[in-house]
Each structure stands twice: as C-alpha cells, then as structure tokens.
C-alpha cells in the first residue's frame, strides 16, 4: 500500500496503490490528513486506478476524508475506480454525495 501525493494551487491529488482495507487504511489516513490540514486544498482527488482491492473499510476511509474536507468547505472526488471497487462504492451510496469519476476499463465491460 502506498500513497503518492501531488498538489497544485487548489487541488490535492492522492494516488493510492495496493490494497485498501482496515489494516492499510489506518496509516494512509494519518498521512493524507496531515497533508490536507497543512495545505487546505479546495478539492481532494483520490485516484484509485492502482487500487487492486477495496472492502468497506475503503468506504469509511473516503467518508472520513469527505467530512474533513467539508469542514473547510472543500470537496472530494474519486477518480479512476476499477470495476470491482466500483461495486463496493455503489453499495455504499457514496456516489450520491461524492463525485465518482469515470471507471477504468469501463468501455470493455
């Protein structure tokens, strides 16, 4: 599990790779929240293109960041979620409060 963080003036882009579960979410949460608090971005973009596995702990992870961003009037967007992960995202109803960007491989399914 790794997290690569890039910023421009307004947005924070966090590219997450590996498996997102209860175990890995804890360390990522700490790392990402520190950046959010320091940089106070308008928008947090979570790039899931290299996430190979995610269970409902990932939903908790996204919701937690959503709440943190909202406190300062910011937003969260999930981009490039692979199909298997999209299934978990749909069950959560998270797509009703967060923009879920176009899925990777969507054209082939």
């Amino acid at each position, binding site marked *: 599990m790794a997290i690569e963080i890039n910023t421009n003036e307004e947005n924070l882009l966090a590219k997450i790779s590996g498996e997102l579960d*209860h*175990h890995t979410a804890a360390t990522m949460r700490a790392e990402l929240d520190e950046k959010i608090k320091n940089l106070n971005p308008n928008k947090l973009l979570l790039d899931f293109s290299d996430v190979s596995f995610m*269970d*409902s702990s990932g939903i908790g992870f996204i919701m937690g960041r959503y709440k943190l961003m909202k406190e300062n009037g910011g937003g969260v967007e999930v981009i490039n979620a692979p199909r298997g992960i999209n299934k978990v995202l749909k069950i959560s109803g998270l797509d009703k409060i967060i923009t879920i960007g176009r899925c990777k491989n969507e054209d082939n399914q």
Partner: protein
Amino acid sequence: MKIINEMKISFPSRSVNESFSRSAVASFAVLLDPRMDELSDIRTAVSEAVTNCIVHAYGDTVGTIEITARILEGNIFYIRIKDKGCGIPDIEKALEPMFTTAPEDERAGLGFAVMESFMDKLTVKSKVGVGTTVTMQKKISRR
C-alpha cells in the same frame, strides 16, 4: 450437501492477517475455476467478515479466527468464519446497512451489507460472551 473439498485455517486477530486470510480463501476458491468478478466477491466478503472479528469481536484483545472453506456439490463455495469474541447482542440491528458501533474508527457499517450482496447466502449466529459464526455460500458459474 456433499463436501467435495475442504480447507481450514486459523490465525490471530491481527489486522495484518486481513489480507492473508482473504487471499488464502481465494486461492482455495480458484479450484472451482471462478470468473474474476466471482473471485473478487469472495475475497471482499471474507475481508469484511474477518475485519468484523478483528474490530468488533476481539476489539482491543487478540483472539483466534477460524475459517473453514468448502467446495460443495453443485459448484457451491461455502465459507464459515468463526470467532470466540464478545458476540453480537442484536443481530438484526447489526445487519442493518450503515449501523455501526464504531463510527469514531471510521467504520461505515457496511460489512454485512457487502457480504449479503456479494454472496448468495449469509447466516449469522452469535451469542454474547461466546462468539460469532458467519457462514456464506456462493454458487460459482460453470464455464
């Protein structure tokens, strides 16, 4: 239903074992030649059940989690996940989507909802102070 094949694993309820346990069960399920999405459903359902044992059943303590996986007649994959943790006082409530006893830990309350929707059958048996047993079944398509 006739058991065609079976495997058992038991391990301590440490979060590092979440990934180990779902991979171990998925490796066994491969014997049924499932599609990628079916295998991914199994992996996710196991991860949810094991995480429940770690976060809720044992909490701050470490106990044993026991998994039995079976290949049953008719291309059915069966999984039983058992803990000897605190038990669930109100199963009906626990099964409600978005219900969680650990919101501060960023638990979404979706574990059972995911198991229910990714598998064909889900049964939860629990006794407070004794433990919880979750059984799940999924029919794997023949190809």
